[in-house]
């Protein structure tokens, strides 16, 4: 019997840890142990400077070996490699575009029924989450599936060559919005929050420690968990491939992307966003270094800046318990 099961991943994992002590301004000391063990092996098919593979690397380090990845059509379908080889040292189940969260539901229930604690993680792009996969995601969150859904958001259908998605921001050029997008980015986090998952967080490829912490925490809690991770994409956003981390930092420093976590409904701003809540760089500093915003109008830039300010106020009110 033949079936589409790729060959096994190659290398023997090493089992030691790098201990990193991180002190955020005005914060308690975080002690982080990022395992040296790699689950995303070298020689993937990712583009140079790919944030999706960077994120996946830390996600899988935090998750550990007792994990199955459920991956709908997205960049990671390609990144993991071509049959009969795979760059993933974990079981990866590739599924239809709209179905990731529903497949994870069935998988998680089957594991739990058999008494297994195996992590079930959906790792999906923004198209597979915000657009075609949102119904399945909503259903899985609502019925309390014990899983972690991670949306890595490169703000377009990047795998198919950069078409507009519901996550594409205002003013951004894609191959289907050659004049720049005229609509706002869909507020995925508000939609997810309306389902009251046990844990919800944002993260960014530029801050792997923050990302690692959140994945580790999420997986320690039973129930539906969701993470939204910004993934600055060099070919899609049109910036040099060595500037992925820099672009992510600009997104956070401008306040356009806020790092936070919401645990049992309580919102906490994390990492570099603590400073950005108080003082931010202008949005132009983020937009002007990306080719995709070449056609953004002054009016749209003002709207983007206003949206940032509104989001910061809204999140601060939530932190302060005013909302």
């Amino acid at each position, binding site marked *: *019997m*033949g*079936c*589409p*099961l*790729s*060959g*096994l*991943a190659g290398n023997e994992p090493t089992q030691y840890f790098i201990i990193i002590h991180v002190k955020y301004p005005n914060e308690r000391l975080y002690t982080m142990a990022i395992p040296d063990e790699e689950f995303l092996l070298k020689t993937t098919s990712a583009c140079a400077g790919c944030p999706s593979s960077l994120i996946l690397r830390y996600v899988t380090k935090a998750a550990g*070996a*007792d*994990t*199955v990845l*459920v991956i709908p059509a997205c960049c990671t*379908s*390609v990144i*993991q*490699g*071509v*049959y*009969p080889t*795979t760059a*993933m*040292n*974990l*079981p*990866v*189940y*590739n*599924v*239809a575009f*709209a*179905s990731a*969260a*529903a*497949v*994870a*539901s*069935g*998988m*998680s*229930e*089957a*594991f*739990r*029924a*058999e008494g297994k604690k*195996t992590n079930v993680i959906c790792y999906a792009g923004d198209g597979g989450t915000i657009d075609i996969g949102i*119904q*399945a995601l*909503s*259903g899985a969150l*609502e*019925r309390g599936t014990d899983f972690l859904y991670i949306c890595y958001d490169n703000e377009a259908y990047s795998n198919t060559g950069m078409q507009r998605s519901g996550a594409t921001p205002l003013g951004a050029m894609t191959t289907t919005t050659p004049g720049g997008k005229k609509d706002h980015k869909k507020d995925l986090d508000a939609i997810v929050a309306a389902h009251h998952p046990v844990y919800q967080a944002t993260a960014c490829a530029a801050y792997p420690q923050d990302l690692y912490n959140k994945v580790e925490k999420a997986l320690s809690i039973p129930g539906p968990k969701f993470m939204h991770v910004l993934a600055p994409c060099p070919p899609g956003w049109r910036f040099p491939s060595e500037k992925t981390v820099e672009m992510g930092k600009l997104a956070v420093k401008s306040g356009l992307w806020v790092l936070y976590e919401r645990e049992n409904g309580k919102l906490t701003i994390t990492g570099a966003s603590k400073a950005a809540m108080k003082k931010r760089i202008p949005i132009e500093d983020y937009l002007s270094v990306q080719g995709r915003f070449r056609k953004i109008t002054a009016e749209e830039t003002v709207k983007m800046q206003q949206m940032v300010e509104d989001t910061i106020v809204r999140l601060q009110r939530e932190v302060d318990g005013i909302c």
Partner: protein
Amino acid sequence: MLTFGTGNKAVAMAVRDAKPVVVAAYPITPQTEIVEELANFVTAGSMAARYIPVESEHSSMAACIGAAATGVRTFTATSSHGLVYMCEMLHMSAGARLPIVMANANRALGPGWNIGAEHSDSISMRDTGWLQVYVSTVQEAYDATLMAFRIAEHTDVLLPVMINLDGFLLTHITQTFETVEPGDFLPPTATPHAIDIKNPGGYGTLTPGNTHFTFRRDMERGMRASIAVIEETEADFARRFGREYHLYEEYRCEDADVVIIAMGTLGKEMEVAVDILRDEGIAAGAIRMRWFRPFIVPDLDGKEVVVIDRDYSFGYGGVLAGELQAKSGCKPFSVIAGLGGQEVTYDDIVEFVRIRKPGTEHWFGVVD
């Protein structure tokens, strides 16, 4: 145990007796009673399955895929629009060689809204790689459902199985039927490619053309092997539980000059028609096709053939008639009847035989 109930209830009780680990459920008329009964079983504790109340049929098949991928027994049920909505996932489940079992209450597709029996829903899923069996009585609905698990899970097959029962005409009629204690008739699942954390691999990764081609060939190998597995399963079922089934069911065919062929409940109606025709001096027989995939061609040599299709392929013709013609070389009188739950009695079937013109098509009740 002798009991009575609807076709839907029989399916649900067979599922209960097969002890699946995961059931995905989404309601649709006329199948809903199946998922309701299963919910009752789970709530009452007579069934230990995890019951996943999904938000769509696309997701019900997705959930079955996720569960079956870990190697456990799974079930779902659907009908009509639900079935075609999960079409993508039918391809995905068969391609992933997952032995999922599903009941489909055959029903017409819109527009306009029609909830009557019609085979167009399952027939249009013909090329997905699913095995399809069509049943005609409440007892057969129970028995075929139980056997479906064993056939699907057999390592020579590892393809999903769809049990088709006519909407309302079978899902909602009540008959007596006997349940069984399957015991080792249903061995535990042993999916060879179940996810194994200690042996990680990629499932359904990017697959080059040549390899994809060999996977498709393997699916066909499983489909062809399923014929022997079905026969062996049906024989073992007969030995253990005393009820006999075959790939197709013949009625008074030995000396027949003309045979009527159909699937589902019409297949039972035909038997009465055959008796009437015999009384009239017409040497008629009937063949009820049970398995549509794999497609098994009866010996039709030297016989006139009347095929009743409760389906239609636009621009082509009745699908069962077309396939029988293609595979056997017969020139059937193709009757299109019963679409959208249109009533077709044994008297009507008698009339089809009386007016037969080999090689032509007749739409019952339609004046051109």
